[in-house]
């Protein structure tokens, strides 16, 4: 049986005496869109930092496409594409130059990189912007370029940390539709957000609060009769 795109088992992390994550279990099955829902400060970014091995978890195990992140970090990271909350493209370089750089970081040779760049830019509908400097792109286009960057190594798992932050409603919808479309091509997605509108009824949802998973299930089931917003507020005690 094929291993899930991501398995997080009993993961905890502390910054000194401050506990940021406690005993988190999370699974992203292959080809699925999984939402990680939580208010600001819930621990989403910390969890992403652990999954991308920016630093090591103090307890538990993380596996990407079956590869243990601590034992085989190279193999695990090679299967990963990441869109961080803060924009990570070099604004002085063109879209193509940025993508070529990230292809190189994954050890992808020039000829293959050229073909991949054309492929991912077509996927995110930015083929006509390939030669433009990133600084000249709109916020939504920059976000799509970030997604193209994350796809350059053909990852099994795509992580997106509040990828629609700072975008207008239209761009937000476009980005979300683009990412949901990727699952049809077999890419698994972990989508971290605090915006409830971005969750569909059939989505697999994890609610993270104060560093722990409070609830997990299909959004429709979690919402019940009251709707997802009320259920979320009731669980987290957050203000409406």
């Amino acid at each position, binding site marked *: 049986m094929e291993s899930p795109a991501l398995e997080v088992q009993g993961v905890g992390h502390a910054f*000194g005496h401050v506990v940021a994550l406690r005993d988190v279990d999370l699974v992203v099955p292959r080809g699925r869109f999984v939402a990680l829902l939580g208010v600001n400060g819930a621990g989403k970014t910390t969890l992403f930092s652990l999954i991308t091995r920016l630093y090591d978890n103090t307890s538990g195990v993380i596996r990407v496409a079956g590869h243990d992140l601590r034992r085989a970090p190279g193999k695990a990271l090679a299967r990963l594409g990441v869109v961080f909350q803060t924009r990570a493209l070099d604004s002085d370089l063109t879209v193509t130059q940025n993508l070529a750089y990230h292809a190189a970081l994954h050890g992808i040779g020039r000829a293959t990189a050229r073909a991949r760049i054309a492929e991912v830019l077509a996927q995110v509908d930015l083929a006509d912007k390939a030669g433009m400097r990133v600084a000249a792109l709109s916020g939504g286009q920059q976000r799509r370029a970030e997604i193209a960057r994350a796809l350059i190594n053909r990852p099994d798992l795509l992580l997106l940390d509040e990828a629609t932050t700072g975008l207008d409603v239209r761009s937000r919808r476009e980005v979300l539709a683009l990412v949901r479309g990727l699952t049809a091509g077999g890419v698994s997605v972990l989508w971290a957000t605090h915006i409830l509108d971005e969750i569909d009824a059939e989505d697999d949802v994890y609610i993270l609060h104060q560093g722990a998973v409070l609830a997990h299930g299909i959004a429709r089931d979690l919402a019940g009769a009251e709707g997802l917003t009320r259920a979320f507020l009731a669980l987290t005690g957050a203000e409406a």
Partner: protein
Amino acid sequence: MTGWRAWTIVFRGIVWREALRFVNQRGRFVAALVRPLVWLFIFAAGFRAVLGLSITPPYQTYVLYEVYVTPGLCAMIQLFNGMQSSLSMVYDRETGAMRTLLVSPAPRWFLLLSKLMAGVFVSILQVYAFLAIAWAWDVRPPALGYLAVVPALVLSGLMLGALGLFVSSTIRQLENFAGVMNFLIFPMFFASSALYPLWRMKESSELLYWICALNPFTHAVELIRFALYLQFDPTSFLVTLGGFAVFFAAAVFMYDPAKGLWGRRKGQAA
């Protein structure tokens, strides 16, 4: 990602990006040259009359102060370049660009070394531009010295770049960088043999002499000075090599996801 071919691609990619940034930021290149040129054209001219220099290795005869100070200014370019790289790493960390580098499947020490080498490459270009201007100012080492100095520049650039890398891992915010200038760069530069020979320093203060003699920057300067005049100073070579090993190991430790202190403090994530 396995094999040397993949690692070569990663290395080439990182150097290529730095070169592109360098080309896009031509102002940075000019700014990096202004500082040593001010020292060469103004400071050295003023001190020429005041500061007498006896014959001291590697020089075979009395030399003008401009000649003496030029290797120190080459090292100064590399020192500031190392700190500039450090500054850009802190900036990259704040903007998120650093994260994309560190989530590459290549080992972290290799990523840091590649970034370091890219910075050294840029600093050597700056040093050669400076040496060309110095040549026009009548500072003319032996022709072969321009070639012999390359390995010295690589090693001193690596040591100073590794120091910058280590410093970048300890700085939380860009605002803290002014402190680095005041407490690290300036003392390192002035308490060295860059501007005056150590025997001069010994005449005025034994303590200062020892501080200068133990300063790794002094040895980077002397390594460059000797190489530029086709000589080899084993002490400077060993100290510079050792300095590189220590600073780089410290930087790798600090950037290590399991051991380093860098990622363990809340709000300092990459």
